[in-house]
């Protein structure tokens, strides 16, 4: 593991984003560049994994090792990577559909294993890549091409979802506050364990006007300004329950006593059990005696 002096530019790849001009993800990727520069791990020691969706294109726009995988499966793949090489800095990103619809079943399990990775969900309350269908975080009543008469289901609350399964770091950010978002992403990466940031990253093409970055600038309220103590998990639940009504940004919860990570426990087990038969003599354990 090495840390070196790096700048945002070291993390920007030559690929030109396919995102629509005005997309919230442009800000998010800049925030990631800057957070990574500040962390100081060189790009080749970073694995950036995503699912499918507009936001899942993000690894390609960085110079890290990227893996743009299949819809909803970024977390399991990222855990495999982290287990295979615990020294890597592993980032996972995707949209709300990727994380809380098709891949929703993987989130609790990633949390209960507590691998040291950071999961960034770019939540825009809509399916953008497939042209504006209802997403798991779309508000009830929202009219989309698949809910032309208004959605009759209620949205998933990503913050409560992740908090309730015991994630050690839960935050929300918006690219309307680049400095704040960058600081949150950096803090999430530095948290030793599973960390989650719900980034409210608006869809400029299909999103609602009141959910655009411009609207965020006036709507957002930082948890710090409200005097929230991020070690207070119960208060975090209460604040998180306002998802969809209030745009709170900052750290809802940070476990003040992070438990051992999955990777640390794996290493411990490997060390405790080291020294079996050499691989080429593996069959000897089946010999009849």
């Amino acid at each position: 593991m090495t840390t070196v002096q790096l700048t945002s530019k070291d993390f920007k790849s030559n690929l030109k984003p396919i995102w629509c001009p005005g997309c919230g993800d442009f800000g998010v990727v800049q925030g990631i560049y800057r957070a990574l520069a500040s962390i100081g791990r060189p790009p080749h020691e970073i694995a950036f994994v995503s699912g499918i969706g507009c936001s899942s294109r993000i690894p390609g726009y960085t110079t890290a090792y990227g893996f743009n995988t299949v819809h909803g499966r970024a977390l399991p793949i990222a855990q495999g990577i982290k287990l295979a090489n615990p020294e890597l800095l592993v980032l996972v990103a995707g949209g709300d559909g990727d994380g809380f619809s098709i891949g929703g079943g993987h989130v609790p399990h990633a949390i209960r294993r507590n691998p040291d990775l950071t999961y960034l969900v770019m939540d825009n309350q809509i399916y953008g890549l497939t042209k504006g269908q209802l997403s798991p975080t779309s508000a009830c009543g929202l009219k989309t091409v698949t809910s032309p008469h208004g959605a009759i289901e209620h949205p998933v609350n990503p913050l409560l979802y992740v908090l309730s399964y015991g994630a050690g770091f839960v935050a929300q950010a918006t690219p309307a506050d680049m400095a704040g978002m960058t600081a949150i992403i950096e803090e999430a990466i530095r948290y030793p364990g599973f960390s989650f940031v719900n980034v409210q990253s608006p869809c400029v093409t299909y999103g609602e006007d009141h959910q655009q970055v411009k609207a965020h600038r006036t709507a957002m309220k930082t948890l710090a300004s409200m005097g929230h103590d991020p070690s207070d998990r119960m208060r975090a639940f209460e604040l998180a329950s306002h998802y969809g009504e209030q745009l709170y940004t900052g750290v809802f919860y940070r476990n003040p006593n992070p438990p051992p990570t999955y990777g640390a426990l794996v290493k411990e087990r490997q060390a405790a059990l080291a020294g079996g038969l050499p691989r080429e003599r593996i069959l000897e354990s089946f010999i009849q005696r």
Partner: protein
Amino acid sequence: MTTQTESMHPPATDLVIGMAGSGGDGIVSAGESLIAAAAAEGYHAMMTKSFGSQIRGGESSCRVRIGTSALHNPGGILDVAVALNWEDFLRFGAELPVSSQTVVIYEKATNVAPDQLPLGGVHPTDVFAVPIEEIARKAAGTDLAKNTVVLGLLAGWFDLAPDAILRGIRKRFAKKSAELVQNNEKAFQSGIDYAKANPLRQARPLARVSRSTAGLMLLDGNDMCAAASLFAGCEFFGGYPITPSTEIMQYLSREIWRYGGAVLQAEDEIAGIGAAVGASFAGKKSMTATSGPGMSLKTEMLGLASIAELPLVVVNVMRGGPSTGLPTKPEQSDLFQAAFSGHGDVLRPILAPTSVADTFRVTVEAFNLAEHYQTPVMILSDQEIAQRKETVDAIDTSRFEVLHRRVPTGAELESYERFRATESGISPISHPGMQGGNYLAAGIEHNDKGDPTVSGKIHARMNEKRFRKLDPLRHRQDLFAIEGDADAPLALIAWGSVAGVCRESLARVRASGLRAKLLVPTLLWPIAEGVYQDFLASVQAGLVVELSHQGQLYRMLRMQVDVPRGLKSLTRSGANPFLPSEIAQRLEQLAIDLQSRVSDQKGEG
């Protein structure tokens, strides 16, 4: 009654014992003891288990085959049938076939008269209604010791390694108490005594073997697959429990840590293969294992591994399907799935082992192919091989080459392109941590560098590359076993567990003077047209024998090879095992038909 009344057969060189009872009877434990004892004495032995669907207490059965020379399959019609109750025995149907030659031993308390056995008109000559429970109670103070009595009966009647069985009994119960050891010793001896007092019409002692047991192993296919994966350098396994593949994950969960590896028991089948794909991306040899329904779930991820050109070994231990089907029984009905499931133009090599021993070679080969060609490789095992225990002679692992993925050299990293066009189609593969090797792996089509593209031209070029790199596989003669008479007009083709049955059938017909041959492909897909074409050149009649309703390999051959008109498909749904004798009879019939056709043609001429 004295032994003088017995007529004496030459000692048997092969004995097939089938036993059934309910789970509480411990009939499978008895089988385990028997095979362990046989192995210790130097016999070749094999045991298959079959169960009802209950977790505990349902019907259970096992077949134990013991021979003085190498065994290829669990045997056909039983030489000995043991029924602790008839309902359970009969539930196994064709899995426990009996004939009039079968020695039938059953619990007297079932109150079935020896001449009224519910065997569908088969009337065995040697039938013993043994008060097994009563003997157990008297000897051991509990009728739970039934299975120990059964071992005594078998040892007594067939001279089956009594000393070794006794050693096994002692070892097993020593952990509990001296009293238990003593009681079971008594139960075992009572069984022997009963057998001696009630001899067979014709004694059938098993011939003794004199061979060294040094290095002799006893294990099942799933353990072999897992151990072989470690030999091949596997460092990661991701999976989800599913019968009958779970023992692979169980073995690795115990052992892989010793080698710096890890197992992830995932939340579902998709996450299991996903984690394995991730570990491979991170540079580690990795594997997942499942059965048909799990394979369906994993399929999308196979597409990802194919387009991202990531090495991965995927084991499908086949069971009866579709859907939950027959989860505890073997079938060969997932070949189409293995070859054709998934989206897009894609080619994945598929390998099939034919026995527990063969599972070692096939697993190592699968890792080698996966790493060398940077592709997912499927192993199609089946419930029989995976869960059958057999003696395996010492394997000289130094004979097996272990290949690793080709990583870029320092010079190549200066201007690295992950999917660089090469003559072989194989591009050096980097992994995170390797400076200069940074690239984007993706499910989306990409150019040489790895950058996403929607260009039809590049897509065509990349498809061509991904297929071209696998071309050499179709010329791997060593992935095909050809046995018998090279220019024979009669042929069998079989794969997986059925190949072992056909090996025996071939030996039988050749012993009776027929000219015949057998082709056993390890490589099922891609179809090696040339190998089949050469093999079939002399063939006028033959059978592709498969344990499935459709006969999937036969249909795939019809797609890609000019198969002679006389080559037919012999199929049967899973859990209805083929018998070596019946396939031999089919071949004999084909030979007769050929003969008459020749004479007909002569007549016409």
